[in-house]
């Protein structure tokens, strides 16, 4: 492989591959939303678009060697305060003993729960709207709909 390309991949793509994936997904979604003629395909694009952003958020919470952000006082693994725990667990818990590097950042994940809800409801609503469009126009192809509007309508 050409050393320049290899270098580029090593420096810019491998360490940031999550960003590249989300950007590619987002572009696919955006492309579908803008260019597709069929309304349902537009919505599929929209879903991909939103999922890309969810992926982005979820990926930024991940840490190397980080586990699930659940503090278990009974399980031994991923819990570095075991030695302190036996004496005065509840007291020490208040102090800064939890090693945040061992856990994935939970906040982006929590945020994405909300974003997923928002995305689902948007999609649901959009599908309901396209159902109504189908009922009144008899088609879901954008050009056909516009054709039907042309003779009577203005703009």
């Amino acid at each position, binding site marked *: 492989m050409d050393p320049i390309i290899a270098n580029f991949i090593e420096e810019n793509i491998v360490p940031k591959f999550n960003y590249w994936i989300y950007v590619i997904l987002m572009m696919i979604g*955006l492309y579908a*939303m803008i260019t597709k003629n069929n*309304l349902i395909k*537009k919505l599929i694009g*929209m879903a991909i*678009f*939103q999922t890309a*952003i969810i992926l*982005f*958020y979820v990926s*930024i919470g991940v840490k190397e060697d980080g586990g699930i952000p659940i503090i278990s006082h009974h399980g031994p693994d991923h819990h570095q305060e075991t030695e302190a725990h036996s004496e005065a667990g509840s007291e020490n818990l208040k102090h800064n003993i939890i090693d945040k590097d061992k856990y994935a950042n939970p*906040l*982006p994940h929590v*945020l994405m729960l*909300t*974003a997923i809800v*928002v995305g689902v*409801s*948007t999609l649901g*609503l*959009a599908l*309901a*709207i*396209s159902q*109504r*469009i189908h009922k*009144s*126009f008899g088609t879901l192809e954008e050009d056909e*709909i516009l054709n039907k*509007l042309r003779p009577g*309508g*203005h*703009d």
Partner: protein
Amino acid sequence: MTEHFPILILLVPLFGALIVVLLGRERPEQCWVTSLVSLGISSIISLFTIIVVFSDKVQTIRYRMGGWEPEANGYEVGIELRVDILAALVVFAVTFVGFVNTIYSKTRAEAEVQGKVPFFYALIQLLIVGLCGIVMTNDAFNLYVLIEITSLTSYALIAMGNRRAVLSSFNYVIMGTIGASFYLLGVGYLYIKTGTLNIDDIRMVLGNDNLWEHQSIVVAFIFIMLGVWTKMAFFPLHGWLPNAYAYAPSMTGTFMAPLMTKVMVYVMIRVMLWLFGYEFVYSGQHVWKELIIWMSVLAIVAGSLLALARTDIKKMLTYLIVAEVGYMVGGAWLGNVTGQAGAFYHILSDAAMTFCLFIAASIIVLRVGDSRVNAFDNLFRKMPLTMIGFTVGALSMIGLPPTCGFFSKWYLISGGIEAGQWEYVCALIFSSLVNAIIFFRIFERAYFGKIAGVKEDLSPSDSDANPDTGIKEVPWSMLVPLFIASGFVLLLGIMNRTLFEWIQTALEVMNT
């Protein structure tokens, strides 16, 4: 009690929405009263909030949802509501327009969305919750959620109209989702660099760690701006707006046209001054300041010309909104307090005059049954009261004293001169002139009727009776909102100095 005002403003319509849906099955006729009461309470609370915020002791109300106290190092944990004088003014505008619009919808809801009346009232209250939340929240992610709440409700509200409305609602879904997603993306980048979502904290971290020049912050800013612009229909991104507002059920259009874009302008000012800060936004090394002012010039000119080319009255008004958005974006970007405060004052005054014009236009379209400009023939004789309301709104759009439109133009032009941005000043004046043409074209028809018109009878005692048609004034439930709106157009004009001083003081803090 007063410290709970912010949340009460949100909760009252929220529960109102629930009650309306529950009531709707049994007693649909009570939906109107219920939402009127809930929005009335909400707007009274927001009026009191203005008073509380303005009394010297409490300049800013901060309300921590769920009682989450900040961490020891000062960073917020939970979601915070934050109401200063600017937020209080916009919240009052939102709730009050909602209240007045509910009066207007008394007869129209039954006629235009048969069978879905409870849902209409529920959605409009949810929309108000969302808009108020947008204005008050101090949490960047929460802002996204609230933006989506308003968007979802407005998609549904618009889709209640005819088949064209459904189609434009679909386009709005696509554009709106892109906009909101861009915003979300921007917040993500901010979160990566700062690790917090509270707007004040983000600003603090940016300042402490001196992150201004970092690329991701610049990217975040651009994404957030693009998202907000899409939502506010800034010129090249305005495609969804005209059809959506023009074809929506009339009482939906009258509510959304004055508020949705304006609240997003407020968000833009918030993002610019509170989230990123003066020194980042207007600093010399970014080329965007000049560029955006030129874009706003383009928006103003294009919006005005597109409006001039429409013959459909509602379409025309929607394009005027596009031009007005250009006013506000330009004003906010001038980089001086006068311009920012002018843009903010224009949020309020534009809300008042757009509300006024949309109600008047809806009434006229309803009575005449024709939405083209020739619907206005002889209307000064047939519907004098409606036309008085329309005239007040139109004069304000043109920018003639003593209406509020004159003063917002005054402040914006002052800001433009102060910043030396002559192209923006010229664009404002151009738009005033075009507005004058647009509205005097209508006045002429409304005053004299058709060109071919034979002179009316020459009796020396000219009677005001109109012999020819059955077109009459609409019921009080539609005229009262019109007069409240036009009253506010004048009131804001007369009170402009006080308001402007409040706004200026609040903004000056952020410009140092």
